[in-house]
């Protein structure tokens, strides 16, 4: 038993040295430094803006993390979001009530995700290729549904809720949605047999199949969930900007993938943690917010995002290779003596 305890302690140490905890610490550091050194960063209102800005990426990143952990990818999320937004605008123009439109949009997202899932698991096509195709297809359909118009007259009690705060304070209403969803996804990934099976699938799908894991079915449902969440975010996006348009959310997929990778998830599957991803999303959003307040231009933001992405993987690798080199040299020296 004492051996067990020792193991646990060593594991903890290793966990702390892992990339996801580094990124969490880095995120906290950036938040603290920015609050102290940039006026207007630490204000309640800025917090609201920050949360609203990171909401779409954060929500879409949750199922995306699952999908990338299983070694697949979904690049169609932003287009699904746009199509859901278009559908929302169209139905609103048709006079449907918002209470019935919102579930329809989420179901529509789920159906779009199911098509992705079918193409990937049913036909065995590579997900990168499939979702590049549906990226174009869904965005195109969004334009078919709503054309070049924008629908803007959504009821204020909904648009106001999305941009508003709890009791007029500093806690944005959307946190009521984000926090429970993040917790649910985190618990599923890290503490359930289902979560375990995702890692197994990502690391070796064949061995997972031999272990009785229903690989295809699992992946299929992940795409459905991803689509449903993208549909939900389409609704939130539309309400936040009180504007349903076919081009809503264009280009968001790369930002989401970047945040997930920054959070320490391996693009090859089988590795990564949800807290790391959440930290990655917050880190990117906070940096952009802070740099914008400092009047750093958009181009420089591009460079920072890109550099962060590369460095996030590069630095730990360099550190570990320095460590092992150093160890080897020590051994050689010991042998020489």
């Amino acid at each position: 038993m004492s051996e067990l305890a020792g193991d646990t302690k060593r594991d903890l140490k290793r966990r702390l040295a892992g990339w996801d905890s580094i990124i969490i610490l880095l995120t906290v550091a950036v938040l603290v430094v920015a609050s102290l050194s940039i006026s207007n960063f630490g204000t309640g209102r800025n917090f609201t803006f920050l949360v609203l800005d990171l909401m779409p990426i954060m929500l879409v990143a949750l199922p995306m993390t699952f999908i990338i952990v299983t070694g697949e990818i979904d690049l169609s999320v932003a287009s699904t979001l746009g199509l859901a937004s278009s559908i929302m605008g169209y139905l609103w123009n048709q006079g449907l009530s918002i209470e019935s439109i919102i579930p329809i949009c989420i179901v529509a997202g789920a159906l779009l995700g199911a098509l992705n899932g079918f193409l990937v698991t049913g036909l065995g096509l590579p997900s990168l290729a499939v979702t590049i195709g549906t990226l174009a297809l869904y965005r195109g359909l969004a334009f078919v549904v709503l054309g070049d118009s924008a629908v803007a007259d959504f009821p204020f009690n909904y648009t106001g809720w999305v941009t508003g705060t709890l009791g007029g304070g500093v806690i944005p209403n959307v946190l009521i949605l984000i926090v429970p969803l993040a917790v649910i996804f985190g618990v599923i990934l890290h503490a359930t047999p289902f979560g375990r099976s995702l890692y197994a699938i990502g690391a070796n799908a064949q061995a997972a199949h031999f272990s009785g894991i229903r690989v295809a079915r699992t992946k299929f449902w992940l795409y459905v969930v991803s689509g449903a969440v993208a549909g939900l975010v389409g609704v939130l996006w539309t309400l936040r900007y009180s504007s349903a348009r076919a081009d809503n959310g264009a280009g968001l997929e790369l930002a989401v993938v970047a945040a997930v990778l920054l959070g320490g998830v391996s693009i090859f599957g089988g590795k990564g943690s949800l807290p790391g991803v959440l930290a990655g999303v917050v880190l990117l959003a906070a940096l952009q917010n802070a740099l914008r307040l400092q009047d750093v231009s958009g181009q420089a933001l591009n460079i920072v995002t890109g550099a962060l992405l590369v460095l996030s993987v590069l630095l730990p690798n360099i550190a570990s290779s320095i460590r092992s080199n150093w160890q080897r040299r020590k051994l050689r020296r010991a042998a020489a003596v």
Partner: protein
Amino acid sequence: MATAPPALEVREVTKSFGAVAAVQGVSFTLYAGEAHAMVGENGAGKSTIVKMLAGVYRPDTGTLAVGGAPADFGGPADAKAAGIAVIYQEPTLFPDLSVAENISMGNQPLTRLRQIDRRAMHANATRLFARLGVHIDPDRPARGLSIADQQLVEIAKALSSEARILIMDEPTAALSAVEVERLFSVTRALRDEGAAIMFISHRFEEITALCQRVTIMRDGRHVCTELVADLSVDDMIRRMVGRDLSALFPKQDAVIGETVLEVEGLGREGVFRDISFTVRAGEIVALAGLVGAGRSEVMQAVFGVDRYDTGSVRFLGRPLRAGSPRAAMAAGMALVPEDRRQQGLIMELSVERNVTLPRSRALARLGLLLGGSERREARSWTRQLHTKLGRLSDPVGTLSGGNQQKVVLAKWLATDPKLLIVDEPTRGIDVGTKAEVHRLMSSLAARGLAVVMVSSELPEVLGMADRIFVLREGHLVAELTREEATEESVMYAAMGQQVAS
């Protein structure tokens, strides 16, 4: 022999992985015209030495010398250039390339324009296969080859490089007696032409048949290097394990119970046809046959990881849903697959996660996996199988080949099955543990477990099985009882002709 400079000299090499000292101060010498065996328990450090000779790892300390000149390999390319060809323990083929391309990768025959001469490449592969006496189409992609065929392609690859030094890490683990004999005759010819051979195996009869000298390893250390003729098999085992070992195949008698598995007319296009057999509780049934006969395929179809086109499977009297390993597991079946790297384990995951993967649902409380239930389970099973490992949280890929095999066994024994299907269960396992695995299977059978064993190792089949089914080219050609079965009768059925030589 001592007058010419040794083909390869290994001096005081050491290699550690983090806290694990895999090889500590090992020295030995390979001479031209001699086959040199290396034996040791699982995890003794044999493959690590091979990888140092191949330039994959650089020794932490110590030196290598090739033909008398010191050598410091920066990578496998350097070792190759120095005339060393290696067959690794795990096949390393390129699945998308044709078999012929796999064989000549790196030294393809060229035309005058320095383009690849495909015709010559094809002819080269055909010639090598003829020499090894195997039928593999050189133009087919390597993907989908059985483990044994892959191993044969590896051998052809090593032969094609015409190296001065040939190092083979358990090349025979997946082969049956016929292929092994062909391999040996080719190897002997090479040896007599002046190549230096290093041969690793857990089968002592192979070592006495092929090698002149043997180096024995224990726990990463060099124990001794002696002439094979001077040592008995028991001597070797004693030095390698550090103690005496008793009977190798202690088959216990068991009460044969009711029928557990009924396979009826099973067939899959192009692979096997019309396979029917039954297995009863307490019985160990072996599937024997040549490599590629379709034994693994049959059992994979039974377990549901593969489809089948015709026939049915009944388990404990009830029809079993086809194509669903989950249904098979729920009914009480377990399958230890033959290819541990691709099918058995998830290399990046920890030992603990691997062992508990099929049981994670049962171990969860309220759907959540918290606390140490997984760890306790993993610990008890790996202990029982004498697995040599650092921590349970280490990735299983860092274990030695034999120890990985034990983890696969642990993983499936932990599910407490009613029918255990084991495919090449002792592939790459050392003598000591092999005896342990056999004892375990035997005692499980005695407690009423039904066992189906696919094995290419005849002594294992003859020693363990109550009944033996022989497959040839996808057909069930013979059923032999324990009493009827002899090496000759099984081989006769497997080959469909009198055994030559």
